[in-house]
């Protein structure tokens, strides 16, 4: 019973926080105190759930349709995602205080309110006990992040918002919803069940189509050709980009993919029928193509965006390799990539606040005036690339191990090639920052300082986190094997 | 119209007959051909004839607009009231059998009153229509009352059949 209440509270805390934030709108200090307080409370709540996780508890919120409840459950993969998202929310909140104040942004209350709502939605996605609940919170997440993307209110922001909303709603309605109803029609229920619910219920000939509907339908996983929303959403303020890319949105996407692969299709069922083949290649193509596009981008945030597209497809690819090792790798990649990417976005934001520079070619030599930021960025890059001593190493390791044990040598090659590409497009940034001579005149470069303290603190914390994960990967691994073996 | 002496004289002698005939049709509607519709139209046309010959202003002195409004409403109320009355007396809606001592007497009373309601409404709606169209030039703007009164009589027809 206690766990049930705790489950419902994970949704309610951020929602209640949103109300308080709105109420405290006129006093910025109080408002931001509430934001941070709520985020800490939420994190503790999720940790409490993590402690409880012996045996799955289910809490029903409502039953909109007969036999189709809106319910939450404590399930390892979901808890992992919830922990990552709620933990990073604390840091993002701290960071955004620095960023928003530093930039004197408009409508800050609206920003914090929708931020809290989207975290509530992300919690819902993470803890959903069936596909229907997942879908519902997925849509709430889309809608609640829209005002964040268009935050600036300029024509450019509105345009980006349209693309964002358009692609996400279009894919989720046209593909995801159809796949959902189809599954319901075939299996008779939508509950996430270890080993999948579709086995023997559906004609294997149609299975690849259903897989494709789910994978393309979950537009937040940014599989090509439905990745355009991610770069378009770059118009958002940096904390939002961090939220979108690392914490809530894209992770909710790949998390959904992973969850559906494991609990709806079932790894064994997919492997037996071979329905994963097509989408495996699509994911592999996205990995490579997005990395190539990233190489050509000079805008830092755009480059990071395409890097995200590529990295997300690692996870989809891991899911589509359909064996337990690869799925564990994919699950770990959710966490490690989240840490790595959020660090990089924080750095990009810090650079913008301090220098108002957005193009990589303009950032030569900044490492000297912003050493902490650039050190963090170096760690972030290494983690994304997957070098030892950073968390990224483990996830990539397991992913490649999975590819090998599935005897998909081509996929192994894809991982290796993309790692090289990662090096090419990411390492340039810290290298230019540290080793290249500053472009601008010494006078102005002296004026450049580190970004406001909250921002720097936040990015330092996440960078340290990248390293910590390398040494404490054990709990993560245990949690995930529990899931993949059922 | 002062000089149309023939028209005035003929109309003067005819109008009472027309009105009387309307009443005849009204009260013989229960067993013979006739009934509230026909009676109402005949009654209405008698008054309209008067208005055509002697002018709208004179007619309005005889039958002011307000009376016409109220009468149309009362006609419908009479009709629907009988229905409710039969409900109260323990029958179904518009089941006249319960209105009198015996079912036959009840039917007689019921159809009489219903037809009266219909007749009153139809007659005054016709006049009210004439008033508003004929008076349009003088007032320059409408009195849209006419429009909706019309629907009322279509209702009655509905329950009539």
């Amino acid at each position, binding site marked *: 019973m206690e766990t049930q209440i705790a489950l419902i509270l994970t949704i309610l805390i951020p929602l209640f926080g949103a109300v308080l934030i709105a109420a405290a709108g006129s006093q910025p200090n109080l408002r931001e105190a509430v934001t941070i307080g709520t985020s800490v409370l939420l994190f503790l709540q999720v940790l409490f759930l993590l402690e409880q996780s012996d045996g799955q508890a289910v809490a029903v919120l409502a039953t909109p349709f007969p036999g189709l409840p809106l319910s939450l459950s404590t399930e390892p993969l979901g808890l992992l995602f919830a922990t990552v998202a709620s933990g990073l929310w604390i840091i993002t909140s701290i960071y955004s205080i620095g960023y928003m104040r530093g930039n004197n942004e408009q409508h800050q209350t609206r920003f914090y309110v929708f931020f809290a709502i989207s975290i509530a939605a992300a919690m819902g996605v993470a803890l959903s006990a069936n596909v229907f609940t997942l879908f519902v919170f997925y849509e709430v997440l889309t809608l609640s992040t829209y005002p964040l993307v268009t935050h600036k209110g300029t024509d450019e922001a509105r345009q980006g918002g349209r693309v964002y909303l358009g692609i996400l709603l279009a894919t989720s309605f046209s593909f995801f919803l159809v796949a959902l109803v189809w599954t319901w029609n075939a299996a008779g229920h939508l509950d996430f069940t270890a080993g999948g619910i579709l086995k023997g219920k559906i004609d294997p000939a149609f299975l690849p189509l259903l897989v494709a509907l789910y994978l393309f339908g979950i537009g937040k996983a940014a599989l090509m050709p439905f990745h355009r929303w991610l770069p378009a959403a770059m118009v958002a303020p940096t904390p939002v980009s961090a939220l979108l890319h690392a914490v809530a949105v894209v992770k909710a996407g790949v998390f959904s993919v992973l969850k559906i692969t494991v609990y709806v299709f079932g790894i064994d069922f997919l492997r037996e029928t071979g329905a994963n083949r097509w989408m495996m290649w699509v994911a592999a193509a996205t990995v490579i193509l997005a990395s190539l596009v990233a190489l050509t981008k000079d805008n830092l945030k755009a480059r990071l965006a395409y890097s995200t597209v590529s990295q997300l497809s690692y996870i989809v690819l891991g899911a589509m390799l359909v064996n337990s090792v690869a799925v564990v790798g994919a699950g770990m990649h959710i966490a490690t990539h989240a840490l790595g990417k959020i660090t990089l976005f924080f750095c990009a934001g810090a650079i913008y606040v301090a220098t108002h520079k957005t193009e990589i070619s303009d950032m030569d030599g900044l490492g000297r005036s912003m050493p902490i930021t650039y050190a963090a960025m170096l760690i972030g890059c290494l983690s994304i690339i997957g070098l030892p001593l950073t968390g990224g190493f483990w996830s990539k390791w397991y992913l490649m191990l999975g590819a090998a044990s599935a005897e998909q040598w081509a996929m192994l090659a894809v991982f290796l090639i993309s790692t090289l590409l990662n090096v090419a497009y990411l390492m340039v940034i810290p290298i230019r920052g540290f080793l290249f001579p500053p472009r601008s005149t010494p006078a102005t470069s002296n004026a450049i300082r580190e970004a406001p303290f909250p921002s720097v603190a936040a990015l330092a914390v996440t960078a340290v986190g990248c390293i910590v994960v390398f040494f404490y990967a054990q709990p993560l691994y245990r949690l995930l094997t529990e899931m993949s073996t059922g | 119209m002062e000089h149309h002496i023939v028209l005035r004289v003929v109309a003067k002698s005819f109008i009472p007959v027309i009105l009387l005939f309307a009443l005849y049709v009204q009260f013989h509607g229960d067993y013979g051909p006739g009934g509230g519709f026909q009676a109402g139209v005949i009654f209405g046309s008698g008054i309209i004839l008067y208005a055509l010959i002697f002018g709208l202003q004179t007619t309005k002195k005889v039958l002011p607009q307000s009376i016409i409004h109220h009468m149309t409403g009362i006609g419908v109320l009479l009709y629907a009231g009988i229905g409710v009355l039969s409900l109260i007396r323990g029958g179904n809606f518009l089941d006249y059998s319960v209105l009198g001592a015996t079912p036959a007497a009840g039917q007689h009373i019921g159809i009489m009153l219903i037809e009266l309601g219909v007749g009153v409404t139809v007659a005054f709606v016709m006049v009210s229509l004439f008033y508003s169209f004929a008076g349009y030039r003088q007032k320059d*703007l*409408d009195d849209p009352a006419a*429009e909706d009164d019309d629907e009322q009589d279509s209702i009655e*027809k509905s329950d*009539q059949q």
Partner: protein
Amino acid sequence: MTYIGLYNYWIVFLLMMTGLYVVIVSTNLIKKIIGLNIFQTSVFILYISIGKVAGGTAPILAEGYKIYSNPLPHVLILTAIVVGVATTALGLALIVRIHSEYGSVDEEKIYQNDPVD
């Protein structure tokens, strides 16, 4: 012979098409109402003519008559006529107000003044 024998339907048909044609073609609102009336009248005739029973007399109880025409269609059509009158009256009332607002009862002139998209 059958086709001529069913002449009442031909009349109904002719009137109906005439009425619809007037409604569609004329731009004068009053003429539209007239067309609508003709159209409705055709249906009245349809009803009344099907109520006729060959050799039957008016449905009034009287000595020496066995076959009566069916009175129900007449009753129905009485209702429909009243509805028609109400429609005409309302239509004319609307036209009166349109005339006072636009100064015309011609559809084309009205839409010139005030395009309804």
